């Protein structure tokens, strides 16, 4: 039996995988088990690095920018030792601003936190400028749905004209 040429769906899947595989992802959480869980979920979609606190995350982002291989996606916890997630996000935004990186080209950030009170969620969205916030414990489908909604998994553009 001869193998036929790839179907449209197979080609679309391959394109999707190639695009997703190019993502550079930073997972920031002080819990090693959460980092391992996130790495397992996200490994098929990109190259994952880990940071155990906000300070480490900022250093890794600075190095990545210097190497001209920035993180496209950062998964950020909020409550961490040394430097919390909100401070880290502000510092990462500042680093990118200093380099003149426009807003649309900056690292995309998802907050993943056990803080589910209105004040924390409001602060993330309207003071820190993060549009995506997930509360722990999260499920895999919600995380992947969020990546899709950010235009990171879909081969289609993440905007509509209609």
């Amino acid at each position, binding site marked *: 039996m001869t193998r036929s040429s790839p179907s449209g769906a197979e080609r679309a899947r391959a394109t999707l995988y190639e695009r997703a595989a190019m993502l550079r992802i930073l997972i920031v959480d002080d819990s090693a088990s959460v980092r391992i869980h996130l790495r397992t979920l996200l490994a098929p979609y990109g190259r994952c690095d880990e940071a155990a606190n906000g300070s480490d995350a900022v250093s890794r982002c600075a190095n990545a920018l210097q190497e001209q291989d920035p993180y496209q996606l950062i998964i950020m916890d909020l409550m961490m030792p040394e430097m919390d997630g909100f401070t880290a996000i502000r510092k990462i935004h500042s680093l990118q601003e200093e380099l003149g990186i426009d807003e649309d080209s900056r690292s995309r950030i998802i907050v993943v936190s056990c803080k*589910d*009170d*209105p004040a924390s*969620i*409001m602060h993330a*969205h*309207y003071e820190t*400028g993060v*549009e*995506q*916030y*997930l*509360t722990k414990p*999260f*499920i895999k*489908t*919600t995380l992947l*749905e*969020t990546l*899709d*909604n950010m*235009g990171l998994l879909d081969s*289609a553009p*993440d*905007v*509509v*004209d*209609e």
Partner: protein
Amino acid sequence: MRTILAQHPDIIHHYLKIAEGCIFEQPTAVSTILGSCVSVTFFCPRRCIGAIFHALLPTISRFEKDPDAANRYRYVDSSIRHIFTLMKAKNIPPADLQIKLFGGAGVLLEGELSSGRANVEVALQTLAELNLKVIASDVGGTKGRRLVFFTHTGEVYIRRHRDPAEKAAS
């Protein structure tokens, strides 16, 4: 977005207008377009029942002299409380509900007169008062959102508008 809908040809499609809300027991793809308005999706995985509203303004008491006679789905707080009551009437406890929150952008689309931030703040406060935990939120920013909610799976797909100024003027 058309592709997402095309993947589900067998289910009902419903376009949700501003100040509308509904609970769905049949599999339905509900789409809507949000600027500063807010939608909250409610999903019970055990019963595969979903609900959603599209509200324009934060609090009913601030705008209506007779809240009982008003359209509850025009306001964020009364929409949440009404859907909570509908779910309760179907014996769905709050702990069984997965809640997601969308919209609240700093952009006004046609027909909107609202403040995105105030809408989101009231949504979060009202949900907290009812012990409804938000599992995911995609709010704020400066771009409008086109949303599709699958009421039988709880999935929500979002695409952002390209240019807020262009869209606001349309």
